[in-house]
């Protein structure tokens, strides 16, 4: 008798890793994008016991790096349109990234277009570095940020 295969029709899941093609003129930037996404995706949401990635606040498309110009743009999607935690998420991203890049790199953080009722106002606040510095000197806010960054409860 001929022996048959145990499972003749397996479901094969596509690999999740992206491999940059060697002829991609932005190959280095693409690798940076991915490494950076991995670095920030496990930040915990300020209100829920899930990571920003799990809640789709951040995704692989969230981060754009221009290594030549030294510019980073992070776009995130708050979980709720009127989410008052948007500024806290912005602070978490800034603290997380503070030592990741050479000091001359510039980081801009924005909410995804159409994702927040006060988009323009939130974006202005997220990128006012003086208000960011002052917020991080507020002990209550700082503690909340640290909890989001260093929690091992995920």
């Amino acid at each position, binding site marked *: 008798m001929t022996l048959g295969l145990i499972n003749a029709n397996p479901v094969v899941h596509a690999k999740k890793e992206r491999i940059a093609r060697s002829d991609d003129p932005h190959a280095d930037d693409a690798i940076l994008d991915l490494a950076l996404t991995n670095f920030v995706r496990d930040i915990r949401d300020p209100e829920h016991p899930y990571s920003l990635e799990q809640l789709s606040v951040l995704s692989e498309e969230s981060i754009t790096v221009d290594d030549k110009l030294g510019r980073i743009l992070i776009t995130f999607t708050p979980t709720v349109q009127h989410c008052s935690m948007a500024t806290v998420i912005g602070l978490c991203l800034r603290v997380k990234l503070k030592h990741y890049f050479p*000091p001359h790199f*510039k980081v801009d953080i924005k909410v995804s277009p159409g994702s927040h009722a006060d988009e323009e106002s939130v974006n202005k606040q997220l990128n*006012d570095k*003086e208000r960011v*510095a002052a917020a991080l*000197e507020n002990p209550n806010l700082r503690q909340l940020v640290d909890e989001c960054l260093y929690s091992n409860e995920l």
Partner: protein
Amino acid sequence: MMELKEIQRLEGHTDKVWSLAWNPTTGHAGIPLVFASCSGDKTVRIWEQNLSSGLWACTAVLDETHTRTVRSCAWSPSGKLLATASFDATTAIWENVGGDFECVSTLEGHENEVKCVSWNAAGTLLATCSRDKSVWIWEVLPGNEFECVSVLQGHSQDVKMVKWHPTEDILFSCSYDNSVKVWADEGDSDDWQCVQTLGEPNNGHTSTVWALSFNVSGDKMVTCSDDLTLKVWETESVGTQSGGGFAPWTHLCTLSGYHDRTIFSVHWSREGIFASGAADNAIRLFVDDNESQVGGPLYKLLLKKEKAHDMDINSVQWSPGEKPVLASASDDGTIKVWELTSY
């Protein structure tokens, strides 16, 4: 050709250097140039020039008074007092006693971070502003006492800077609400009112206004903003009005396309050159465009110093003295002193 040549790089602060201020009574008659700097490290440093080497050294560190970032510092016109504005919601007044600085008064009242402090030309009034959207005017009393004479409400957001006019007791404030407000005493008993608002409807800025500076005669003013432009404003000749009212400011021109990122500071020298410090780490100098055709640009870029610092530049200030130098303060924790030379 003109060049901005680095004279010295000063280290010592352990966090962002937010602001610096030259002592206006120094740099003349053999008195060495002195300036103060303030930082996210909660300290203020005093730097004095050695006359033989021409270099600056830190001669005092003012610490253990402010409990949060010191955001702004300003010398009184007499050079005897230094005011410092802090995120701890207070403004401290320091007196120079034989080279040692003693905190002689603490001004309280603002609800949160104080962003800026400024003395009027006579040294009789002090203005402060805060994220609480208010501007306070304090009267300087004998014995280093200060009395709040007016709390000005009008800005709808965080007030970033206050600056008195160089010759008149008129106060200017810059805000996160994208406007510059002009305040004057409308009566004889501290009835301070907003007499003009330079906002978007009259050619004003479209984002946060961070700083402003006057030319030497006080009839022109330059403002800088998060909208990546510098705007120049003018008023009718100051000081020639006899008992007249306030002379309004009108927009003269906008300098756009020069800056890549937020402009945090601008300062107009006595020689007519204004310097800008920005988040693209560059210093730019602008000057009157004498060769401009009628209707052409009024000001032109004299030079751009790329990579003047490793990070954002928060303050640029021309020194007093016969041959002014330019000092710059940065997020990289350093201060640099520059001279303008030709080659």
